[in-house]
């Protein structure tokens, strides 16, 4: 009995911490969708790209860890700016499928790039924080997961403050609410689009460094992006709180499914359970727990 409880507790702790790390990536998706209504199907590839940048920079001898992180952030911000300018702005006002397909195409491009430029082998991103698990009661977590949780919580705090208190955050909320009215109030909407993409770039960069150092950087790192969809659907596409709660739920479900179901069905429920949960959510609460309901008119 006691063993059972300990097992459940360990699964819960590890699931919640992984879930918060999913939230970090999902934040990038939510920020962009909230401000610009653009849908980024290449979020996983963003994370992969950041991981590759960090891994390549850190591979040089004597590079401090911070230089790798800074390089990843810089590249991702520049990349997101360029993407918004070159690809997404011409697609403004076009059907939603155009944006979805453009980001799917972008994802394919990003997955193809590393093997022909820097080589496709798996790389390590070493953050020099050791890999001895740290105990929390009966459960234990590797330090990288604890770092991931801490980084996510810090960014959540920052974003909450930004959107609630800062002048730019309020302007961004206005842009998200109604672009035309925001323009009429003298807000430079295009600048805030760029800002939203830059913020998504920063979040993806940190996600890339953390997930990259946990899983190793190669093309398969982009598969993390597949977990973004259950997270944002459960939480609501345009809600930051939703991304966090959705992430926690997905992490928890995944961990419990892997712990309790895998022995019976032969593995792989980890990737499967969140999607079943998501389908159920789509059928009964398509706008998620915290998402904005849309009313459509002819």
């Amino acid at each position, binding site marked *: 009995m006691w063993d059972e409880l300990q097992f459940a507790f360990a699964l819960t702790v590890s699931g919640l911490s992984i879930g918060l790390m999913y939230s970090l990536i999902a934040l990038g998706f939510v920020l962009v969708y909230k401000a610009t209504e653009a849908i980024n199907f290449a979020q996983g590839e963003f994370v992969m790209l950041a991981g590759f940048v960090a891994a390549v920079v850190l591979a040089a001898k004597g590079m401090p860890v911070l230089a790798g992180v800074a390089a990843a952030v810089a590249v991702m911000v520049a990349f997101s700016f360029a993407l918004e300018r070159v*690809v997404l702005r011409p697609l403004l006002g076009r059907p939603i*499928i155009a944006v979805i397909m*453009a980001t799917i195409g972008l994802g*394919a491009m990003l997955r193809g790039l590393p093997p022909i430029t820097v080589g496709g082998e798996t790389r390590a991103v070493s953050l020099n924080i050791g890999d001895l698990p740290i105990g929390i009661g009966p459960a234990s977590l590797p330090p990288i997961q604890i770092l991931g949780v801490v980084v996510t919580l810090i960014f959540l705090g920052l974003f909450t403050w930004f959107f609630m208190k800062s002048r730019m955050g309020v302007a961004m909320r206005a842009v998200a609410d109604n672009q035309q009215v925001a323009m009429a109030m003298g807000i430079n909407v295009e600048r805030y689009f760029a800002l939203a993409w830059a913020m998504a770039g920063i979040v993806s960069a940190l996600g890339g460094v953390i997930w990259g150092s946990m899983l190793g950087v190669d093309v398969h790192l982009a598969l993390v992006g597949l977990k973004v969809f259950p997270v944002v659907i459960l939480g609501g596409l345009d809600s930051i709180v939703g991304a966090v709660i959705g992430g926690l739920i997905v992490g928890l479900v995944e961990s419990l499914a892997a712990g309790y179901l895998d022995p019976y069905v032969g593995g792989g429920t980890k*990737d499967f359970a969140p999607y079943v949960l998501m389908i159920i959510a789509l*059928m009964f609460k398509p706008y998620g727990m915290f998402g904005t309901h849309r009313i459509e008119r002819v």
Partner: protein
Amino acid sequence: MFHRESGVYKTTYAADMALYPLPVARWTVAAVILLFAVVLPLSLHDYYLSIINLSLIAIVGALGLNILVGYTGQISVGHAAFMSVGAYTAANLAVKLGLPFWVTLPAGGLMAALVGAIVGIPSLRIKGLYLAIATLAGQLIIEWIINHTPAISGGAQASIQVPRPELWGYQLRTQGQLYFFLLFFAALAILATLNLVRSRIGRAFVAIRDQDIAAEIIGINIYRYKLLAFAISSFYAGVCGVLYTYYFGIANYEAFQIGVSIDYLAMIIIGGLGSVLGSILGAVFVTMLPIVLRLSMEPLAGLFFSAGEMSSVIASTRLVLFGALIILFLVVEPEGLNRLWRNIRNYFRVWPFSY
């Protein structure tokens, strides 16, 4: 297709919708049939026939996806999963019950249609992005179920060997024989689609694409037609999967993963959404792309990469080129190759004058 008319003289809707816009078009169609049924199989080497065969299979799948995405406006990222449903249904029927292809082929299509209609149920409540994600979930869940059910997937390798199709006691083995087999079904699919989209059902699909609430108000039962679109599209996908299985002699889930779904979406976007000719052009284009790429890259890339890296380098280059093409077409020419072809025709229609 290749004629030049002197003006538009159509006075009725029926004339405007006719398959042959002018009597001369019959001769074009006859010439195309002659080319594909006699000239090509007699003159081409087996290698080139195999490329055409792959294109023919892709045409069936692309037509199906275009009915759903291009005509009905319901996005689906799970097309490959429906192909796998068709493929495994046919493979199991053919191997376990020894049924001939003219039973397994429709059976595979119908099974895929059933599964497609089930995956399409969320489309009744959600659309756009939500539907894309729901069909993505459908793809992953179907893949997982097939992979984890030995009764469907045939054991550890998740692949089933299938005997080649048999017709009147003859087994179709060579590329030439399979060519006629595939050509028949591709032609059937093209004809069926051409007729479907100019029927009442096709017009209902287009109305739903343009504005589904407005379509409902003018009396179209959108629940019925959305599910019908999913079912028809998945039927095509299932048939495509069955043809694929018979062509390669093996049903394997690895041929129907999420990347294949994206390939098919790329086909209809590059070819042109909501157009039969576009589906055909896109399917041929996307099938040829890796082949042309390999031919053109092998001599050049040898200078930079070792032989071992070559296949992964070519696969990656294909991905990059592919993504770039999707983005390029979306940004520059959203109506795809079909529109380019129409522009060329319009130019020559008034040639040598500019308008």
